[in-house]
């Protein structure tokens, strides 16, 4: 086993691995990141949840030093983003598959290891560890271009942590992979956390943020609109309320006007209401019957991060 990802000495010296203060990044008239501030704590997995175009990837690029902010600052263990120390401490797993198609898995990892200054036994050990971590040891000699989509994703992740960084930035690492590969990636992330790495994980999949992240920042239009643990966010938006989803058979105009009268909303043809107590369901259904709407099915559920996003923005996360 290699050296632990988080050096205790470094962590003691600088307890907050990553601090972002009032960060702004504009592209012409568009403000992609609009005054974001946050802290990443040692060993935590921090989720950046937001729809496509919310500014998550730009924020990651600012952290990794690939985009120069127009205002604000990023500090990595006290070093400025883009500095040699910051680069050494960060591992970036970009959303795109940034690999060499004509190199094998092993060669790809060795190449990125060398870019990070590894050589000799240290490089060999690190490559072997990453191949094991990504469950690619038996495909070490295969060309990247011949791997399946899920394997490429895993190799892409392994290339980002080849130098055993203390902070790992994962930009939508599960985009376009099948459920089986996604589960495999989750296991890899959990193993990485077990090694002590602090992780920033961007996604627009609510389930991933709920499963993996200790805290989540919900981002929209370049701003953090809510930040906290899953429970804190849900409680902040809904307190102890629950959500009722019901589908009715009836003229759409009648359904729509009835839903509006009861302060609900239609989402994909399903009526959605927020209620304080489950006893309110009976009243709602009774009223629907009186309005001549035939109930097809009804579901009661606890609100989730998607509900929080919808509650805060009025839009679906995947819009």
């Amino acid at each position, binding site marked *: 086993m290699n050296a632990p990802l988080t050096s205790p000495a470094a962590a003691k010296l600088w307890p907050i691995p990553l601090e972002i203060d009032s960060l702004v990044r504009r592209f012409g008239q568009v403000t992609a990141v609009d005054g974001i501030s946050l802290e990443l704590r040692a060993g935590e997995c921090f989720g950046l949840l937001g729809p496509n175009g919310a500014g998550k990837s730009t924020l990651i*690029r600012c952290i*990794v*030093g*690939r*985009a*120069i902010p127009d205002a604000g600052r990023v500090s990595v263990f006290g070093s400025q983003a883009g500095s*040699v120390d910051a*680069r*050494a401490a*960060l591992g*970036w797993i*970009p959303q*795109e*598959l*940034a*690999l*060499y*198609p004509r190199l094998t898995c092993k060669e790809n990892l060795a190449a*990125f290891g060398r*870019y*990070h*200054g590894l050589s000799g036994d240290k490089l060999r050990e690190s490559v072997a560890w990453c191949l094991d971590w990504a469950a690619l040891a038996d495909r070490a000699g295969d060309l990247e271009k011949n791997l399946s989509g899920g394997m490429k994703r895993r190799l892409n992740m392994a*290339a*980002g942590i080849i*130098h055993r960084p203390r902070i790992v930035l994962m930009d939508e690492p599960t985009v376009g992979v099948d459920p089986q590969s996604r589960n495999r990636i989750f296991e890899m992330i959990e193993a990485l956390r077990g090694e002590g790495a602090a992780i920033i994980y961007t996604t627009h999949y609510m389930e991933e943020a709920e499963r993996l992240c200790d805290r989540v920042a919900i981002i929209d239009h370049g701003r953090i609109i809510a930040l906290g643990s899953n429970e804190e966010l849900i409680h902040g938006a809904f307190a102890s309320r629950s959500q009722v989803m019901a589908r009715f058979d009836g003229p759409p105009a009648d359904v729509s006007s009835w839903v509006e009268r009861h302060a609900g909303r239609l989402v994909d043809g399903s009526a959605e209401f927020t209620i304080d107590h489950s006893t309110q369901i009976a009243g709602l259904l009774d009223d629907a019957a009186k309005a001549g709407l035939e109930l097809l099915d009804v579901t009661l559920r606890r609100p989730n991060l998607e509900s929080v996003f919808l509650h805060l923005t009025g839009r679906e996360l995947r819009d």
Partner: protein
Amino acid sequence: MALRRDRASLALSFILPIAFFSIFAVIFGGQHDSTPKIKVILVDEDKSSASLDLARGLEREDSLVVLTRPTSKNKAAQQPAEYTAATAEAAVKSGDAPVALIIPRGFGQNPISFGRDLGGPAIQLLNDSSDLIAPQMVAGLLQKAAMTAMPEVMAEQGMKYSEQYIGGFTPEQRKRSDAGLEELRKIQSGGAGSRSNAAGNGIIAVNSRAVVGENKRNPMVSFYAAAIGVMFLLFTASGSAGSLLDEAESGTLDRVLSSRVTMTALLAGKLAFNTLLAFTQLTVMFLWAWAVFKLDFFTHIPGFLVMGLCTAFAVAAFGMVLASLCHTRAQLGALSTLLILTMSAVGGSMFPRFLMPAVMQKAGLFTINAWAIDGFTKVFWRDLPVQDLWQQVSVLLAVGIALFIVARRIARRWEFA
């Protein structure tokens, strides 16, 4: 559709054939107006009125540039001494001029010769055998100059020959006349075998001698190995440098630049790799020339190493500039084809520069090809030592460094998004 969106490539695909056609039109079409002038070194050891007349006649020729002394680079400095037979030969060997004429002592006493052993000492024509045209042109113009520039000598010599060959037409004279005519007939039909390939072919006896390349087994191989080699090196280097574009497109470049590697280090690494790649390619080509065309490769290793590495460096840096200028592989393909074919045409990779009009010869000096070919010619053709390559080495290294700096500046666009 993809080509339509990539307007730069679309434009280049139309510009390329027009540009290339225009270059060849200038090189070949322009020769009607401006025949390439041939530099000829003239050494007059005789200083007789006949030799002076002949020198003046040669100087009047539009197609010749007659040099009697080395060109002084510093106008304020004292004029250099006139060429001697030895310095003229050295100058031809070092490529200052393709031909030297040496008018020997005693030439004026008997300048015109019909047949062997009848004239005075023959004019020495020293030539560089890589230039097949210049010595023949000079030999022809020499005869022309003799005909037009020395009328009194011609008359005097004619009388001499009349007296010698005709006399009073006695039987003895008839016999001698017949013998003379027979001799002339032999000369006309080329039967008067002589080592000197031009002797007896005109009214002035000329002994030609190749002072460069006379012992070469395959004279033009070294020229073409360098000429074609440099052209393909340019293509390889630009193609190889195109990996930058692939990396930028795939996101790998971003990822690399997020590691410890800086843009300068990345470009320097690529430059080093592409230099080695180009040098290896050149080595393989010269080894092929040695194996198949009997090029004297192994006797010129130091010169080859110096010229090969300098050329590979300049060419690799050129490829880096092209790759950093372009946004897509298609653009790179079109731009590199345009520039490399242009440079190769002007710089002598397709057509020897000494056969081009003077303007094009000067334009060639703005290409890597010309300097590289000149350097390799010095090594393999003129057998010059490594220290004589300083000019080519300096230019190629300076060009390489300058191009790398330009590439680095242009590559700033990739540095930060």
